[in-house]
Structure formats: C-alpha cells, structure tokens
C-alpha cells in the first residue's frame, strides 16, 4: 500500500488514497490510452505525491486551467471528432489527473472518487471477460474503501478496505439475485450502436504484409468448442473471407456474390460453437461448408458468413458444417476466372506450359504444386519487396514468401491456365485447450489458401504453402517460427496455466455474456414461473422485493441482536435461570446481585427457596469463589435446566 507519511495539511490527508483508487480504476485501460495520456497522468500524480512528501509548491488555479486546455487540445488532436469510449476514457483520465490538485473539501474528494467509479464503468463497454469482471470487483472494493476513509474521521485505509469488503460481501447475494431476476428485454431500447474500435484482423483487401502482420499478433480471435471430437488438422481451415477480384497487385473481396438460399446436405457433419471476440468487421468464421445460417447473419454463395452488423461484442454462434466439398454447381463461376488483361507475362506463360502438360484440373494442381516444391521456394515471414509484376517477381526472382504469396501466385497460375480459382482468408488449426477440449484460435494462426473449381469434384481446397512448408500446416506457425522457446519447463508450466485460466474464463464468459432474455426465461420457467403471464411477472417482482427485504431483515436481525461479547457457559445458564424467573413475573433487576436476587425470590416464592438457593450457591461459587472445577459448571447447568418455577 501507499506508505507516504501523512504529515501534511489536513485537506491533503486522503490524497494518496484517492489517487491510488483512481490508478486502480485506470490500470486495465492502459492499453487503450495513448502514451501521452499515460505519461500525463503519471507525471501529475507523481508530482502531487512528491509535493506532499517534500512540500513542493502546488500549481495555482490559472496553471491548472492552462493544463486542462492543453489536455483538451491533446484529446482533440488524438481523437479528432470521433466521440467514442476511447475518447471518453481519455477525457476522464485527463480530468482524473488534474482533479487531485484542487482537492480541498469533502465535496472535491467525493467527486474525485466518483471519477474513479466512472472509469470503472467505461471498462464495461470494452470487454466482458472474466478478468475484467474480477477486476471490476477489485476496483469497486478499493474505491469504496477510499470512500469510507473520507467519510469516517476515525477510519484508516486498512479499516476502510475491511469495511468495504464486508459491505461488498453482504451486497453480493442481493446483486446475484437482482442479476438473475432483473427482467431482460429482447433487442434494445435505442438500437444497438456499437462503437467500433480499430482491431486487428483481415481486411477486405489482401495485399502484401497483411498476413505477416497478423501472424506476429498473439490475440485470440475465437474459441471453438466441438460437440464431438475435434476434426483432424487437415480439416481445420477456418474460412472467413473469399477474395475473388485481382487487380494485378492485390486481391479483393467481391461485392457481387449473391446470398445463398439453398443448403445442400453432405457427408461428415461437425457441429461446433464459436465464441468470436469482437473484431469490428462483419465476417464470421466457419469450417468448410455450413449447413445453416446462425441468427443475425447471412450466408453467401461462396460459403462465407457475414454478420448483419460489425461484430463489436463477443459473438456466440453454433453451426454445423459438412467437411466434404459439394460437387454441384451453385452459381456462376465467372468471378473466379477474372484476370487483368495485362501484367505478369512470365507467369501467364508458365501457366500455359503447365496447362499444356495436364489432362485434368487435378493434374494441373499437382504439377503446379510440384513446380513450387522443386524450384527452391523458401517460406519466410520477411520476404523481399516485389516490383510491379508481383507474381512474376515472386515466382522467378525472389522465391521467398509466405502463405499470401504462395496462394496469390497459385491462384493466378490457375486462372491464367483457365481454371477458376479463388483465395480464401481465414485461420488454420488452433491450440487445443486440454482443460476444456476446445480450440483457441489466435491471430497468429491467420492463413490464406486457394480453392480451385473442377467440374468433377466442385470447389477443392488447395494449400500451396503446404508444398513449401508442410510443418506450417501440421504444427502451426509458432512451432515453425519460434522453436527455440518451446520445450523449457517454464514455458510448459506457463502454457498449462494459461490454458487453465482460458478454460475457466471461457466457460464463465459463455454463461455470463450469453445470459439474456432467453436464458433468463428458461431459468425462471425451470423454477416453475411463467414469465409471459402477469402472474409470473408479479411473482418475479415480488421475488426481487422479497430478497431485498429478506437480506436487509436478516442482516438487521443478526447485526442488532448479536451479543457484543462472547458469553461463557455459566453466564448463559445464569441468564436462562433469570429468564425462567422473569417468566413467572420476578425479573432480576440489572443492578441486583445474585444473593439479593435469591433473597427476593425466596420472599416472593417461598416454595422455590431451596432450588433457588442451591442454584445461586453454585453460581456464586463459580463466579466469585477462588477455585472450582469444570464439573461444577456442568452441575450448575444441569440444575438450571431442571429448575422449574411453574
């Protein structure tokens, strides 16, 4: 904790704690804040804390206003007019950095801590991961601790935190009930308006460097849980986007692909659920040939699936795919044959040669693969730059490249040879999490491959990269590229830990984020309440109110009735004895000693005299005499129990 001597002015007394609470609130956002704001905050708070310690001068009001103007300017430069959660967070951070300088009253302190709460709130619209959820509790805990500190003159930060923890623990059951029972609605009030933040991933254009940038990124794209077994590695080609148009340098997605209306059935279906992290684009990832369309999305003729809105929140969808290709023709294949009129002459010639030697499409594919295998091509993530005829330059000069180059060249050769071909962008493989038996697919698994059309077998998947770097396909990128890291015990252990955490958080998020109208209705109906009817709604409402009252009531009951000190057995028994006598109308006065009490009872009820005298004798002996053994306590309690004044 903060160890700053508080030999400071009274109004500065709580400054370190307030700053601490704000820092805790802001920490998970560091990645989203531009560097200058982080430095800005660190500098402000650092100066403030040191000024407490060493009595440095404080900036006056004019300087602070100047600073705020600078801060607003900085925000305008960074974010422009794009008002989104990031800009909002930036503004909050700048305010939070400056506010502590002018704290002098209780009101300022309260507002500073409310700022910390606001910062916590912004994190919610960022992510719903388990980590953020847990962190939210931590942040609320610390901020509330500081709030208690400034509201209670005798509190220390430690006692404030303790009370904050107690209050939070007492609030959690109520929170859980409210969370589960609070009625959810389908859809939204004002319409979902997700605010897109730039995220990495595929773009609609496949140009050099796109994939190699992704491969270096270790972020999770999605997780896939299979209903049965995970299919073999050669099937785990997660299709996301299909590039049809080639302009001589780069490939583009075509906008002219019609939507699919008819889902032909096929063999080897696999069913799986995908938890897609928000990526700000519309595509969803599937294996080969989906058999249906999930909600809020549309399937196109090239078997790509697109969400109706950009995916800005975690998206869950369940889907069944056929792993065998469909042999029939669904639509016009013309877009898969388009080539620019000019450019890459050498490649066109090579394509012609290859096509001349082949009788069928399959043969052509094999020969082309063979060509790539035998002519000294190298797989690398740092290829040399290519000139204006990139395919020629790659095939005949540099011969160094990664999946993008091979797929591009291969598709070009096919089209030049008159065979329809298209490039598919997506992810390959994924890590199996042994704790949850699901796949984790990261940006580093990004891959592009080719699909070639043949009249005989329909669209066939061809991965030209496999010809050059077979391990890239079977083992994933990390194994081919970062061999030196794997194997050490620490890495293994770390991996295990990461897998474990991922399994826990994934299943939590699947439940937590997925909990909405339908799940709530299902859960409540399992309790036997029909949500649709008025009676059901009333029941839910009364359940909520009932829980609140019950919690409050129980709490009040236990807190207010609880004895302040622990009692020993003698005391308990004596009180029981007094209670018995109280019931017959002879209560012991609080200032009445035992002997006086006995005398009083003997006077009022002479019949009880022997019993009462005996009990009092024992009590006095236990309480006031020098020595007694434990058996006497038992005897005393027994006597009290047997005592019957009625």
């Amino acid at each position, binding site marked *: 904790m903060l160890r700053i001597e508080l030999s400071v002015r009274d109004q500065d007394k709580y400054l370190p704690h307030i700053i601490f609470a704000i820092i805790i609130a802001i920490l998970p956002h560091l990645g989203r804040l531009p560097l200058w704001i982080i430095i800005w905050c660190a500098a402000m708070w650092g100066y403030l804390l040191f000024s407490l310690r060493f009595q440095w001068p404080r900036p006056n009001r004019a300087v602070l206003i100047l600073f705020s103007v600078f801060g607003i300017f900085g925000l305008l430069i960074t974010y422009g007019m794009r008002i989104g959660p990031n800009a909002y967070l930036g503004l909050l951070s700048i305010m939070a950095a400056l506010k502590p300088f002018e704290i002098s009253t209780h009101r300022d302190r309260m507002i500073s801590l409310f700022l910390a709460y606001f910062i916590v*709130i912004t994190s919610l*619209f960022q992510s719903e991961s388990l980590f*953020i959820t847990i962190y939210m509790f931590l942040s*609320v805990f610390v901020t509330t601790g500081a*709030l208690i500190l400034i509201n209670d003159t005798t509190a220390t930060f430690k006692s404030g935190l303790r009370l904050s923890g107690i209050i939070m623990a007492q609030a959690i059951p109520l929170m859980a009930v409210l*969370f589960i029972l609070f009625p959810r609605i389908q859809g939204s*009030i004002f319409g979902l308006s997700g605010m897109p933040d730039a995220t990495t991933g595929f773009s609609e254009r496949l140009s050099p460097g796109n994939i190699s940038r992704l491969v270096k990124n270790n972020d999770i794209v999605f997780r896939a849980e299979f209903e049965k077994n995970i299919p073999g590695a050669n099937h785990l080609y997660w299709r996301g986007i299909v590039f049809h148009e080639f302009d001589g340098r780069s490939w583009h997605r075509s906008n002219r692909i019609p939507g699919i209306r008819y889902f032909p059935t096929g063999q080897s279906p696999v069913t799986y659920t995908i938890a897609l992290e928000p990526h700000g684009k519309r595509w969803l990832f599937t294996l080969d040939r989906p058999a249906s369309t999930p909600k809020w999305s549309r399937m196109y003729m090239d078997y790509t699936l697109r969400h109706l809105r950009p995916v800005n929140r975690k998206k869950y969808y369940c889907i069944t795919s056929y792993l065998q290709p469909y042999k029939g023709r669904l639509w016009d294949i013309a877009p898969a044959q388009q080539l620019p009129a000019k450019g890459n002459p050498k490649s066109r010639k090579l394509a012609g040669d290859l096509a001349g030697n082949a009788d069928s499409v399959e043969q052509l594919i094999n020969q082309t693969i063979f060509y790539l295998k035998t002519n000294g091509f190298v797989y690398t993530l740092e290829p040399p730059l290519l000139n204006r005829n990139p395919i020629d330059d790659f095939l005949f000069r540099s011969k160094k490249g990664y999946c993008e180059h091979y797929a591009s060249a291969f598709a070009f050769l096919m089209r030049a040879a008159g065979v329809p071909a298209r490039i598919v962008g997506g992810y390959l493989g994924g890590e199996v999490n042994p704790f949850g038996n699901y796949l984790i697919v990261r940006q580093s698994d990004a891959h592009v491959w080719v699909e070639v059309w043949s009249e005989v077998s329909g669209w066939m998947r061809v991965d030209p990269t496999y010809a050059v770097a077979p391990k890239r396909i079977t083992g994933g990128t990390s194994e081919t590229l970062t061999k030196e890291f794997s194997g050490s015990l620490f890495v293994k252990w770390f991996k295990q830990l990461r897998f474990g955490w991922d399994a826990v958080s994934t299943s939590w998020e699947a439940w937590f984020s997925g909990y909405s109208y339908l799940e709530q209705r299902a859960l409540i109906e399992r309790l036997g309440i029909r949500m649709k009817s008025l009676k059901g709604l009333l029941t839910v409402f009364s359940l909520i109110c009932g829980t*609140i009252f019950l919690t*409050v009531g129980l709490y009040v009951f236990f*807190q207010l009735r609880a004895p302040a000190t622990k009692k020993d057995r003698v005391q308990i028994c004596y009180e029981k004895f007094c209670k018995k006598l109280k019931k017959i109308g002879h209560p012991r006065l609080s200032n009445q000693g035992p002997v006086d009490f006995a005398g009083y009872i003997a006077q009022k009820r002479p019949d009880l005299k022997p019993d009462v005298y005996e009990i009092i004798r024992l009590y006095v002996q236990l309480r006031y005499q020098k020595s007694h053994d434990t058996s006497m306590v038992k005897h005393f309690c027994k006597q009290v129990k047997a005592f019957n004044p009625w």
Partner: protein
Amino acid sequence: MKKRFWFAPQDVSLPIRLTRNRIYIFPTVYGILFLLVLLGMLIGSINYNNNLGFLLVFLLGSMALVSIIYTWRNLLGLNILSVTASPVFAGETAVFDVVTRSDTLQRNSIGFAFKKEAHCFETVFAKNPTTVKVTAKTKRRGLHLPGKLTIFTRFPIGLFRAWSKLNIETSVVVYPKPIPGPLHLADGVGTNSGKKEIQTAGVDDFKGLRQYRPGDAIQHIAWKSLGRCQGLFTKQFANEISRSVIVDYTMVRADDKEKKISRLTDMVIQADRMKIAYGLKLPGKYLQPDKGHRHRHNCLKTLALSDAED
C-alpha cells in the same frame, strides 16, 4: 399521544435512546448523484444488453442498500445521557458536554450540532460513555437555550445521511460581559462600616511573644530571648482570616442597567481574584459575603439572571 409533523423535532427529556421512530434517513447530494448515475448505467446496460453493466449496477446498488443499514444502525440505539455546559461570559462560545453512550457497537463519525452552529464529528466507542463538545455561541446574559440538537451521520460511504433532531431542555448560564474598571467596595459585614478583622492563632504573621507553655512547638520557641536568659518564650503568629466587602449595585456609576451589571460582574471577578470574602447587593437581592468557587458562581448567576431596575 400528541400528533406531530413527520420531521418535527421532538421535545425530549434526558437520558434518551435514539429509537427507530426518531431516526430519519435520506440520500445526500452525493447519494442522489450516485443513484442517478446508476439509473443511467442501468438504462445503458439494458440498451446494450451488457451483462457486466448489469452486474456493476446491481453491485453498486446493493452496496448502497447495505450502506443504508450501516448508516441507520450507526445512530440506532445511541444514548444521549446528558447535555450540560459550564457557564460562560456573554459573547463567548458555550461548550456543551453531550454525554453519549453506546451499549453494543462502536459508532463511527457521528456529527453533533445545535441549530445553525458548527458541527463536530465524534466516534462513540462501545460501552464507554463519550463526551462530545458541541459549541453554541452566546450573545446576551441570562439563560441561553441552544435549541435543537441535531445528531447525524453519513457513515460509511457518505451517500446517505441519517439524523435525529432532539429538542433537549438544556441551558447554559451566560454571565454578563465584564467591563473592566476600579473596584468600588462597600466594606464590612452587615451594616458595620470600617474594617473588621478576625484574628486567630496562625502561622503567617509574627504577633508577639508569650510565656512558654508545655506543648508549644519547638520551632516556635524564642531562642534569642532564651539566650539572653530572659526565660522561655514562645513566638506567637497571627492569621488574617477574613476581610469582607460588599459589591453594591447602588454604588456603581454607569449609564444604564446593563453596563452597571457588567461593572458589577467585573468587580466580583476582581474580588474573587483577590481572595477576599465578598457579598453582592442588588435591588431586592442580597448575598452574604463568602469566598470560593461556589460563591462566585452564585454571585455571577444572580447577576446574569438579574432583572433589577434602578
């Protein structure tokens, strides 16, 4: 039972225990702000169907709800045993000792204030009576009634304020403000004028010698006279026990009645400081000459409450 308005303070006699029907609770400005923010967040969460938003809203809401109990319980069952104050001079700030006791729990940061006066926060620990010093400004001499005592608390998180207003029957004697000046005294006890001294054997002033008697203290033997063979003598000492004066209203010259009383106040204080026995004579009132703390209080109180006319 007398009907009363909901928030109206109640006339109470001490000691009093703050029971349920004496405690009111309401959100503070911050509490209202907090609830508004929560409401906004709730709407946002419904709109975006953001479950983490719901969770935070319900967490903060439940914590606020639990804190109400803490705030309420912080006042509930607090005993106010007595409210007393030592007399002050007009214009000074009277300090009321509010003695409070908590039977079971420690009560943090409880504020006490008389109406329109400064408040102070105090923690009342369990079982031990705690004395809280609550101030009230005084203006005129006489009996000062500080008015309603507000006992409030914002513990633990400042979002809610519980309070209880008590109309306590307490007062403080406000002595007149002294106006400095010379000490006009009417000497003597009763009607006797002129000095009267009561002398007894003492130890302070040497008075003379007398024949030695067995039992006289050895320190008091006049060794010098023994050395001169004049015989054994004992030194005798005398104490001046008392000299009494009267502070008289009619002897004071001042413009009006209040000033006269202020002058008399100053004289009483002076006489007390000089440690002489003094009496007080006001129209229709007479206090026998005496000394000591109690007498001083009696005199000043008589002056404070006096409604003498010339």
